Each structure stands twice: as C-alpha cells, then as structure tokens.
C-alpha cells in the first residue's frame, strides 16, 4: 500500500505548485447565514435503545477493555 499512497500523493502534489497565496479557503460551498434556534428540550433516544446496538453493554453503559494493558 505504501507504493499506492506515494503514487496518489504525487498526483495530489500538483496543486502545491499553484500560486494561491491570497485565495481564501472554502469553508462552506453554499452562501448561508448562521441562524440560532431556541434551545428547547426534546426527547432523545431511550438509553436501552441506544445501548442495544453495542457489542458489550453493561449496567447501562458501554463496556470496553481496560485502558491499562494486562500484565
């Protein structure tokens, strides 16, 4: 995969040669004005439903292996 990635980067590197010093980068393609909405509480997913897809739910939470490696 290293060779493939090099080939892709070589192609991508072509844009490095363009002089775009004063060009602003695009952050959003469509002209939109930011708006605010009221911060109203609404129902979200039930905890059991949110946990139902987890590989290892336990006691109302997502269980993961210990962050500390076993000796």
């Amino acid at each position, binding site marked *: *995969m290293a060779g*493939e*990635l090099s*080939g*892709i*980067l070589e*192609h*991508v*590197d*072509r*844009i*490095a040669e*363009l002089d*775009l010093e004063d*060009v*602003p*980068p*695009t*952050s*959003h*393609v*469509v002209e*939109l004005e930011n708006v605010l*909405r009221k911060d109203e509480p609404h129902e979200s*997913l039930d905890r059991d*439903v*949110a946990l*139902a*897809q*987890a*590989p*290892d739910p336990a006691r109302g939470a*997502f269980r*993961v*292996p*210990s*962050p*500390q*490696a*076993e000796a």
Partner: protein
Amino acid sequence: MAEMLDLTVVQAHEAIAAGELSAADYAKAWARAAADDELNAYLWRPEDGDEGAIAVEQPRIAPVAVKDIFCTEDVPTTAGSRILEGYRPPYSATAVCKLLEAGAPILGKLNMDEFAMGSSNENSAFGPVLNPWDRGRVPGGSSGGSAAAVAGGLAPWAIGTDTGGSIRQPASLCGIVGLKPTYGAISRYGMIAFASSLDQCGPLTRDVADAALMLGILQGADPCDSTSVGLPEASRLPQGEDLKGLRFAVPAGLTSDAIESGVREVFEATLATIERLGGEIAETPLPHAEHGISAYYVIAPAEASSNLARYDGVRYGMRAETSGDVIEMYEATRAAGFGPEVKRRIMLGTYALSSGYYDAYYGQAQKVRTKIAGDFAAAFADFDFVVTPTSPSVAFGLGEKTSDPLAMYLNDFFTVPMSLAGIPAISIPAGLAEPAGGGPKLPVGFQIAAPAFGEQKLLDAAFALEQAIGFDAKPGGGGG
C-alpha cells in the same frame, strides 16, 4: 405484469390516480422483480414482512430501493462495510422518512462501495454489483447497487449519494438518470457520513421526470441537519420541448486525451442535438477543473478520516475479540472491519491533516476549491449550463482497475469539480458506444451542471434534451 413494470414512476402514478392500477399490486410486482436479483444489487430485502418499523401498510406511491448508506429503523444498515455488519439503527434517515410518509414501501437496501468510497462498487465488503448491460463489467460506484437495480429492472427508482460523482457516474455506466442536487437541497440526517462538505443525497431513475418527482419528495430543510436549506421553489415535473435561448458551456481543452473515442462521439452528437433544439454552445475556460481530482483526494479523505473515527467497536457494529487493552481492541476492530480502500483513505486523510502538512494539503486543497467554484461562477455569468461527458469511459471490466487506485480515481474527473463547487448536476443517457477494447455497445452519460439551486431549470433542459435524444436501449436488448 411485465407491462406494469415497464411504466416510469410518473406513468405508474398517473395510472394509480386514474384507478387503473393498484399501488399495492404495483408494489407487490416490484417486490417479486427484486427477488430475482442476480446482480448482487440488494444487500437486504424484506422477506415475510420482516420490515419492522419501516413497513408501509398501504402503499400510495411507487416502492423505492435505498442505498445501504441510509439508516433504516430496525433494518440492517451496513454502508457496504463489515464494521457495521449486524447494525440495526434505532432511527431512520430523514430521506427515508420522507419516502415512507409519501407512502413508498422500501423495496430493499442496495449494495455500494464501502462507505461510498469507490467508482466501481468493487469496494463493497459484500461483493461487487454486476452491470445489467454486461455482467462482466462494473456498474460504477459508489451507488452501484442503486444504478444496477434501476437499469436491471429490480426497482422502479432508487436513492443514492454523491460525494464526487457517486450518483452520476453509475447512472452513466448503467444508462439511467442520476441527479446530484445542490449541496443543502436534501437533508443528510441519518445518511452515514463520508465527506461532510461534499456528501449529498439524490435520485437514480429511469428518466428525468422521475428524478424531478423524487427530488420534490426529498428536498427541504430539516432541523436535524443544519446544512440543509431545501430548494427555493417547489419543484414540479419538468417541461419544455426546445432549448431556445439557453447557453451551454463546454469546458475548453476538456475534449483532449483520457476520453474514450466512443464517449467523445456520443458527447459531440449530443452537442449537435442541443444546437438542433435551439441551444447555443460555446467553449468556456474552467482552468482549475483539472485540479479537481487532486483537491478532492485531499479533502474527501481528510473528512473521511475524521468521520470514520466513530467506528471503534464501542457503540455499534462489530468488535474484534482481543485479550489486550482498549487501544488494542480499537486497532483490531478497525483492522478487521475496514476494507483496503477505506484504510487507504483514512491514512491519506490523516496524513493530509497532520501537523506540518495541513497547510500544504488540506489548506491548499480548500483554496483550489475556491478557485474551482470561482471558475463555475464566471462561466454561469455567461452561460446557463456547463456540459461534459459524465465519465471518460463506458463501463469497464470487473477487476480492470482495482490494482491501480489512481486510475480508479480518475473516473471522477468530470464529476468532482461540480461536487467541490456544491452545484447541481445531472447525468442522462445520451447514447451507446463501443468500449475501448471492443465488444457490445454500452451506455454513455451526458452531464449537465447548473448554478446552485438551479434544479428546476436544469431538469427542464435535461427533459427537453432527453426527449430529443430518445434513448430507449435496454440491457440485454442489444441496440445501437
């Protein structure tokens, strides 16, 4: 029964409204047709009423097939990836909800390149989709299942997603219509994210009128997607018999190498048809479009590397069994769950965003994007539309480009610039052409791009052109 399935969706709806056709019978006939899928187009279909929350008791409009990137409540949603195998989302995407509310039964979930990364559907973890015109060839991608299902008579219409061409290119390779709407026209809530500044939902249909009908159902602002704004005018079915007074721009220098001769012939014949309909054609410079692929393959992988960080084996999807710590679990899960193309793009994107490289890659690519959008804005000051072939080639053989990722990426040469600019573009079938290596003729798509939110005018022009072209070839039916 076959006659019923020959109708376009607009025609079927007219027959339903006139009382000549029962929407329920029509839906059942399509469910039977979908069951005969020999193209690997479907990843999931309801069997014995196993539709759970997305069941539609009384169909009112045509059933729809949905790319497996859209969350469907209680129904498997994989995005073509092992890492989501077995995942049944607790909610449905807004696009799916809108179809259900309109009374459209869901025919099934459609195969796709993993996380929508690909141009041939060969990156699906669940096997490639076959092109109905020639089963030894790819249907395009990433919405390959959507395009093959509609072209192959397995669905009356479908929805897909387009990040750099993933609706338009497969539509082109399968001889159907594919529309990428303006960025923000349709809600993306519940649509699994690939590259958020580019992703957009859209229809894959038999003809332009069906695409307009689907767009009307799907478009609209959604409080659940802050990037959605909808369309400024209620969409109607397209109309128009000519192209008088309309100006079409062909990007200068575009008809050089890379394009197959058969594709170029169809493209030039279509330009002649536009002129016959009263449209004017002239060249326009689009100087930065050639850098679209370079900018895209920085921006899209960068955003993907961030979006795909969520697949870690904790909240949903698969988890690899390991004996070590949580980091080892993350690594093993992602190593086992993601396919090679997804890994390639995560690595590219992570590299492009890394400290010391950010400005040279992501920053520079976002500036190129500004220049490409500026090129289009300049073109639209003088022209109504920009036209190109949709894809440089007709459908290529399975396995033909899998060993060379860069060659695969160049399939998106004509579709990526519009995605970077956020503007709407449609691919319509324009004719048939012999593949470069010889063989039976295959469909060629013609792409028309319009200014942002110019969908209605775009659909009207595409409709007039479609009527004049009169493309009526069918897979397996020969033609010429």
